[in-house]
């Protein structure tokens, strides 16, 4: 095991204010079980899970309440015991509505004892368990990528035939401003991460391991060095330059192994890499060794409008209002509430939204930190082009989308856009460039889906 500096620096990128000092020294704190949980069926990328319970049912902690529904999907388990008050459509942080279970955690079935807190799944010995058993465990534990996108982990760890994973990259960059959840996990759960890495190495057939951490987290680097000191095999800790969006999967692969992931639909596995967030790795260790499914996660609640910023271990489905209350409430009325980080997170209009497996942070920002701006015409300064980590001509894409020319945006490779927000961040005319890209991507995806459906219908005929 050795620590090296990353020899590859991607072009572009920006330096936002990190503001991590607000919550970085706050140890992970488990929050008391809230009275009500709203467990969404759509906590991951892909098809939402199929709800298995109805209003009035009693559920036990860890019970499967949402069934895996399709190949790219994972199951949802109840984060706590209680009574299902209702199953209804609820707004998610990204704006879409999905079925959600409203759980009253105080209600217990009559005449029944407190449910025992034993392991939910049978603990597995990873050294003797087969690869298939381990994959099945990860799938039934409901684990999806906890960095943000929520890609089902069991799918990622099971490369299609003919593709081999040569490098397992551990994503500990956490380049989003304010967020410190992964940082705290690296400090406090280093042995769990090590165990998770060993399990994943077994599943993937012994790839080399690269642990990517930004240079501004020396304690995390030290903690990882200590945890991985006596590991055998090809393991390196790669210290990355501090630059946003270093935590992006593609940029991480470039920074650690120097490979470039081709345009979508290519995936990291096409260049022999699998990237996993450190939180996901710790969750894998828990699922295998302790039989504990993914029911809770660390979420950073930060920002200058919250009384005490904290890193909270909260059950999935905790309402934002409960998280804020646990942090001592609002210091000043927030002007903006963001689910996730400031660069890629989603502004939300209500605290009645609940956390999912992918909620890495909740930020409450005072009017001082929020600028109200009016977007203006592009002045052709090219700052977005310089900032784009995917080397796209963001200005041209934005202009094309503005005049409804989605084809031109597609020709300008808008599908490669990772929506990191560097272009909008650097635009002096306050143009919502990322939003333009997102719009183009959505219409292209919709068109592709329509074409696919049409082709399928034609094939049927």
């Amino acid at each position, binding site marked *: 095991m050795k620590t090296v500096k990353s020899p590859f620096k991607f072009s572009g990128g920006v330096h936002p204010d990190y503001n991590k000092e607000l919550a970085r020294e706050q140890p992970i704190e488990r929050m008391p079980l809230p009275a009500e949980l709203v467990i969404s069926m759509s906590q991951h990328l892909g098809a939402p899970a199929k709800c298995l319970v109805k209003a009035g049912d009693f559920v036990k902690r860890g019970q499967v309440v949402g069934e895996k529904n399709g190949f790219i999907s994972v199951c949802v388990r109840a984060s706590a015991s209680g009574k299902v008050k209702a199953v209804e459509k609820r*707004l998610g*942080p*990204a*704006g*879409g*509505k999905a079925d959600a279970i409203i759980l009253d955690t105080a209600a217990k079935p009559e005449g029944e004892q407190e449910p025992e807190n034993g392991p939910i799944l049978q603990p597995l010995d990873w050294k003797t368990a087969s690869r298939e058993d381990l994959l099945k465990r990860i799938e039934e534990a409901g684990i999806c990528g906890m960095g943000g996108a929520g890609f089902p982990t069991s799918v990622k760890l099971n490369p299609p035939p003919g593709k081999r994973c040569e490098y397992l990259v551990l994503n500990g960059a956490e380049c989003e401003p304010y967020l410190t959840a992964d940082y705290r996990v690296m400090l406090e759960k280093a042995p769990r991460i090590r165990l998770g890495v060993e399990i994943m190495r077994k599943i993937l057939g012994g790839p080399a391991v690269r642990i990517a951490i930004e240079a501004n987290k020396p304690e995390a680097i030290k903690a990882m060095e200590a945890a991985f000191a006596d590991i055998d095999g090809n393991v390196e800790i790669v210290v990355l330059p501090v630059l946003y969006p270093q935590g992006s999967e593609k940029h991480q692969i470039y920074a650690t192994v120097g490979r470039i992931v081709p345009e979508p639909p290519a995936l990291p596995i096409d260049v022999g890499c699998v990237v996993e967030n450190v939180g996901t790795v710790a969750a894998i260790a828990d699922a295998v060794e302790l039989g504990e499914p993914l029911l809770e996660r660390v979420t950073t609640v930060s920002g200058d409008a919250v009384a005490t910023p904290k890193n909270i271990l909260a059950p999935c489905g905790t309402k934002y209002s409960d998280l804020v209350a646990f942090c001592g409430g609002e210091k000043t009325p927030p002007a903006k509430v963001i689910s996730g980080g400031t660069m890629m997170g*989603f*502004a*939300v*209009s*209500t605290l009645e939204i609940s956390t999912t497996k992918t909620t890495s942070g909740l930020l409450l920002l005072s009017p001082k930190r929020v600028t*109200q*701006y*009016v*977007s203006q015409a592009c002045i052709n300064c090219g700052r977005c082009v310089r900032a784009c980590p995917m080397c796209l001509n963001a200005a041209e894409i934005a202009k094309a989308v*503005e005049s*409804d020319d989605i084809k031109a945006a597609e020709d300008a490779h808008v599908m490669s856009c990772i929506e990191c927000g560097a272009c909008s961040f650097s635009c002096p005319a306050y143009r*919502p460039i990322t*939003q*333009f890209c*997102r*719009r183009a991507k*959505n219409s292209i995806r919709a068109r592709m889906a329509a074409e696919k459906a049409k082709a399928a219908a034609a094939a049927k005929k």
Partner: protein
Amino acid sequence: MTIAIICIASVGLVAAVVLAIADKYLSVKEDPRIGMVTAALPGANCGGCGFPGCDGYARALVAGTAPNGACAAGGEACAAAIAKILGVEATATEKRVALVKCCGTRSEAIRVGDYNGICDCNVAAATAGGDKGCTYGCLGYGACANVCPKGAISISDGLAKVDKRLCIGCGKCVTVCPKKLIELVPASATIHVLCNNPDKGPTVRKVCGVGCMGCHLCEKNSGGKEAGHFTFDGFLAKVNYANPPTDAQIVAKCPAKCMSEDPHFESGH
């Protein structure tokens, strides 16, 4: 001089012969009815029939693969003209127009955020579901107005309104609306429920002053369930356009004030 005349004349002669032969052997035989049908169609190229423009529909009609009557813009007169050309029956069609099922103006429906991104409903809806408190309601960023080939939709007071006289019923707005609250309704129907929120009354009331609460009073006042003028989706009344109510009294009696007698925007153009 003479040589020049002979040269030009012979070149002309050769070209004429070639063209005459080409005309005979290489001609593309197009059914003359395609041109006639295209001329009978309104020429709006709106795509409402599901074919690429009027010409595409005309070709499908002549080929016999499309039903006569799919052109909402042309209506009955157009269908009758086509029937005459092709010698087929015209399927009876009624002119249909778009109806925006929301009446939550800026003063009635609360806005929960300040949205200053791209002025497009689909983008706004993808940002925390939009800035409107009611997640089923019209956002008013004009995605429907932008796709309308006839300029029949205008946005006023944060709400899309359809000019019934201009609407040709192509259904483009129905497809583009992220909230799926535009419906094509018979142009002859006059009484409509202008709400799209199936939630319970108190929930609706929290976000909108004019939302349907599902009180069933419209149904009661129009002759009860047997009359079948209304259907209900959760706590949302829907007009049964196969059997629309005609009594204007029920509009005035709606406690939620979400019903309207012909809401279509009539002036301003």
